[in-house]
C-alpha cells in the first residue's frame, strides 16, 4: 500500500501562503509566455508604424472597448466574490462567481463576433489573407499578432471560466471545503491576471492610429 502523501506544511495558514506564492510564480511564467508575442508586436510597431496604424484602425474599436469594460467589470465581480467567500457569505459569493462567469461569456461572444467579421474580410493569417491597400504584408503581420494575442488570451480566459464554473457549482451544492475561501482567492488572482493582460492588449491592438496620424 502506498505510503500516505506527506503533508509538508505544519499548519493551514502556512499552506495557504505557499499556495498563493506558488500561484504568483505561475502568473509570472504566464507573463513571460506572452513576452515573445509582445516583443514581436513591438518590432512590428517600430518597423512598420504606418501599416500598424492602418491595420489597427481596421479593428472594431466599439466592440473592443465594450469587451474591455466587460472584463474590468468581471474583475470587480470576482473581487467581490472573493471578499464574500472570505466572510462566509457563500450564497452571495456563488452569485458573484456566476456574474463573473457570465461577463466572461459575454466577452467571448463579442470576441467571436469580431473574429467572424474578420474571417469574412479575409484577415486571418494564412493562405486566404487579403487586404486592399498598401503595406498588405505588414498589415498581415499585425493581424497575425492580433489573432495570436487575443486567441492565447481567450484560451486563458476559458480556463479561468472553467475554474469559476466548477467552484460556483461546488459551492451551490454545498461543497464548502472544495470551494474553500483560499481556493476562490487563488482563482481570483488568476482571473485578475488575465484581465491585466487584456488591459494592455486593448490599447496595443485597438487604439493605434485613431487620431489619423
Amino acid at each position, binding site marked *: 500500500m502506498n505510503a500516505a502523501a506527506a503533508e509538508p506544511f505544519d499548519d493551514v495558514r502556512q499552506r495557504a501562503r505557499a499556495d498563493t*506564492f506558488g500561484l*504568483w510564480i505561475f502568473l509570472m511564467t504566464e507573463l513571460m509566455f506572452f513576452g515573445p508575442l509582445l516583443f514581436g508586436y*513591438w518590432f512590428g510597431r517600430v*518597423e512598420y508604424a504606418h501599416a500598424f496604424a492602418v491595420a489597427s484602425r481596421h479593428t472594431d474599436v466599439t466592440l473592443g472597448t465594450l469587451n474591455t469594460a466587460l472584463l474590468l467589470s468581471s474583475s*470587480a465581480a470576482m*473581487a467581490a466574490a472573493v471578499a464574500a467567500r472570505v466572510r462566509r457569505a457563500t450564497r452571495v459569493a456563488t452569485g458573484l462567481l456566476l456574474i463573473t462567469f457570465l461577463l466572461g461569456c459575454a466577452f467571448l461572444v463579442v470576441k467571436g463576433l469580431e473574429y467572424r467579421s474578420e474571417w469574412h474580410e479575409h484577415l486571418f493569417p494564412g493562405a486566404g489573407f487579403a487586404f486592399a491597400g498598401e503595406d498588405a504584408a505588414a498589415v498581415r503581420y499585425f493581424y497575425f499578432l492580433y489573432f495570436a494575442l487575443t486567441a492565447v488570451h481567450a484560451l486563458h480566459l476559458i480556463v479561468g471560466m472553467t475554474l469559476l464554473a466548477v467552484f460556483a457549482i461546488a459551492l451551490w451544492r454545498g461543497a464548502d471545503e472544495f470551494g474553500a475561501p483560499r481556493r476562490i482567492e487563488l482563482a481570483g488572482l488568476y482571473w*485578475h491576471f488575465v*484581465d491585466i493582460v487584456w488591459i494592455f492588449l486593448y*490599447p496595443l491592438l485597438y487604439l*493605434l492610429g485613431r487620431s489619423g496620424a
Partner: protein
Amino acid sequence: MHRNTRRIVLAWSALLLLLAATCASAWLPIGVWNGVVNLGIAALKAAIVAAVFMHLGASSAARACVGVALFVLLLIFALAGSDYATRDLHPAAWQPPPTRTMP
C-alpha cells in the same frame, strides 16, 4: 465588509473612467504621445487591479515575483531592442512563401 465592497466599487469606477479616458484620448492628434498616454493609462489600470483586487501591496513575496519577472521581461526589450535600434533593416521585396510537403 462594507468597507471592502466600497473599495471594490471605487476601483471599478476608476477603471471604467480610465477606460473612457484612454479611448477618448486615442482620437486626440498628439502624435507619438497617444501611445505614451494609452500605455500609461493601461499601467495605471493594471496597478489598480493589482493593488485593490489582487492585494499586491500586502505580500512582499508577490511584489518580489512581479519585480523580478518584469525586470527579466524588460531585458528582452532592452537588449534585443538594442540590436534592432542599431541595425539597418533592408526589407526584401514582398513574395509569397514556397510550398512544402510535410508538417
